[in-house]
């Protein structure tokens, strides 16, 4: 049997294991080990496995992940981002679905100070959900906007997925961060347009009768703007660190975590117990996501040994004009994998397989990074393993049925489809900001 055919069997075995609820990381490592052993023998495979996990994890670049996670958790637990919601609530008060739009843009703003989709969903949702519930918003819309808005943090810098992509493809994380800004804002705008259209057509979605007026907020805009200083300062520190040339992404993450802690202490909004909770959550989340990265590195190393990426490239080129076939295949693969795997697992597993074909087609890797991060962001809100949907579900009353949340999310996926078509058709949107940095 050809090694790449063997690789197909190993991939099928991996899918069977995850269907049987074996942890994703364990399934990846086990299949990588079995595949490698079938190629080079058991003893050499074991020898590789004895060193591979540490060699992959001991990465300076990857250390940015726990630091940005810690920053996001501190921001979320200390309420540093609370003023964002108050600000956007006032700005969008007159629009149909104003509170949902405010939640959406607050998530984008929160992403600039955290880099974590889950932190954005929980951090903003904790505040926005009670407001929307009081106003009588549809619970499906509430959950969907929190879950989907949170994914914007994957695109808005600093973004953990872009850091991982930069490591995988040896790109500059700073250039990739810049590439995510316009697509991130475009996605936020697409969500907002969809929310406005839906609430305009069906006012009951925002708890309003067809002819009813929206309640105006009595808060003073100038006071709310002044209240934005903690999140603005934190974002400024991180961006200055990154683009001022005195901090690498990891250092900027560490600086961001230290600054978030200092600001939270200065505002007296953070106890020692909350800080320890933030540290605990960071340790557990980092371990849960990076052990999958370790597993993906073991399986993709085997797939490379087996010549699987070359096999995929050759198979796709047999279809004639490679570019669109490649992009269509890639899209299907990322969407399907995103439905059953966590985002980093999808990226670490699929990117090395498609990378040689992308390079062979002469496609821009920065643009490809945006497409990959968009797909894994979509993976965060596609059932059955939409991690952000589970986080959003936790914000809603326990009796609210999960399928209703999934149905409400379909509208956001429709908006995502429109954004993807725009990004595929106009690569310049993703490449304009990076071109200023290059």
């Amino acid at each position, binding site marked *: 049997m050809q090694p790449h055919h063997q690789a197909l069997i190993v991939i099928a075995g991996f899918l069977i294991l995850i269907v049987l609820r*074996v942890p994703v990381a364990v399934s990846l490592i086990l299949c990588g080990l079995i595949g490698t052993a079938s190629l080079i023998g058991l003893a050499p495979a074991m020898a590789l496995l004895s060193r591979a996990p*540490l060699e992959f994890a001991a990465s300076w670049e990857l250390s940015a992940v726990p630091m940005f996670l810690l920053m996001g958790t501190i921001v979320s637990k200390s309420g540093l981002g609370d003023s964002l919601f108050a600000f956007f609530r006032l700005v969008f008060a007159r629009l149909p679905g104003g509170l949902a739009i405010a939640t959406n843009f607050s998530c984008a703003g929160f992403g600039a100070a955290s880099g974590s989709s889950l932190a954005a969903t929980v951090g903003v949702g904790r505040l926005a959900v009670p407001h929307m519930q009081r106003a009588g918003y549809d619970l499906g819309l509430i959950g969907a906007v929190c879950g989907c808005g949170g994914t914007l943090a994957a695109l808005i810098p600093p973004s953990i997925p872009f850091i991982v992509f930069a490591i995988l493809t040896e790109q500059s994380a700073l250039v990739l961060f810049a590439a995510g800004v316009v697509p991130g804002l475009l996605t936020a705008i697409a969500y907002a347009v969809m929310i406005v259209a839906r609430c305009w057509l069906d006012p009951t979605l925002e708890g309003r009768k067809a002819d009813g007026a929206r309640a105006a907020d009595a808060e003073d805009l100038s006071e709310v703007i002044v209240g934005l200083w903690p999140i603005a300062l934190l974002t400024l520190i991180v961006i200055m660190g990154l683009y001022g040339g005195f901090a690498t992404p990891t250092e900027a993450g560490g600086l961001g975590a230290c600054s978030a802690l200092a600001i939270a202490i200065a505002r007296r909004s953070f106890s020692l117990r909350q800080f320890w909770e933030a540290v605990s959550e960071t340790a*557990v989340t*980092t*371990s849960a996501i990076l052990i999958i990265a370790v597993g993906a590195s073991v399986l993709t190393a085997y797939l490379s040994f087996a010549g699987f990426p070359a096999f995929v490239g050759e198979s796709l080129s047999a279809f004639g004009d490679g570019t669109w076939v490649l992009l269509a295949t890639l899209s299907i693969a990322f969407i399907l994998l995103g439905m059953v795997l966590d985002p980093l697992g999808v990226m670490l597993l699929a990117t090395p397989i498609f990378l040689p074909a992308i390079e062979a087609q002469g496609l821009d890797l920065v643009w490809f990074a945006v497409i990959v991060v968009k797909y894994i962001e979509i993976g965060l809100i596609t059932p059955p*393993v939409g991690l952000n949907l589970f986080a959003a579900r936790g914000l809603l009353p326990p009796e609210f049925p999960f399928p209703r949340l999934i149905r409400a999310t379909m509208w956001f996926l429709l908006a995502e489809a429109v954004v993807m078509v725009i990004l595929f058709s106009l690569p310049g949107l993703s490449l304009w900001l990076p071109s200023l940095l290059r």
Partner: protein
Amino acid sequence: MRAIARLAAIASTVTGFLGKIAVLLMMAHIGLDLVLRVVVGTAPEGMPEAVARIYMVMVVFLPMALTQSTGRQIEVAFFADLMPRTLQRIQSVFAALVTAGLAGLIAYLSFDVALEATRRGERLDLLAASLPIWPARWAVVAGFAALALSALVQAFGAAPTLPGQSSEPV
């Protein structure tokens, strides 16, 4: 079984605690290094190496048992949830045993590597000094061993009880 369960709980707590300490140390070391560089213009060498080779290894591997015991491991529950209850229990035992087996194997394999690194006092050479990195090797061993124990206890806890057996959870 109770003794193993107690040992697994202690292992999970201790390794989890050390993982959290590593997060704190990572943040403090990076922050201090940046402050020194900005204020004094220079900082002791070795921060990136310490972060990558020591703290990072501790953060990734040590909390694994805590992740497993608190149900925070990332897994696909959707398909398993569609199965009948009895099948679900069998599937839980299977998943936990696979996890325990693989984690035990990696702990065993990395034990030799860690022992060898400790014997020769593995260090990373910097410009003016060297950084001992062999302790991080033990973080991999401890992390996977604790995970194996945790998963093993879960396997026994989830196993369908046979007639005449106590159904008391371990």
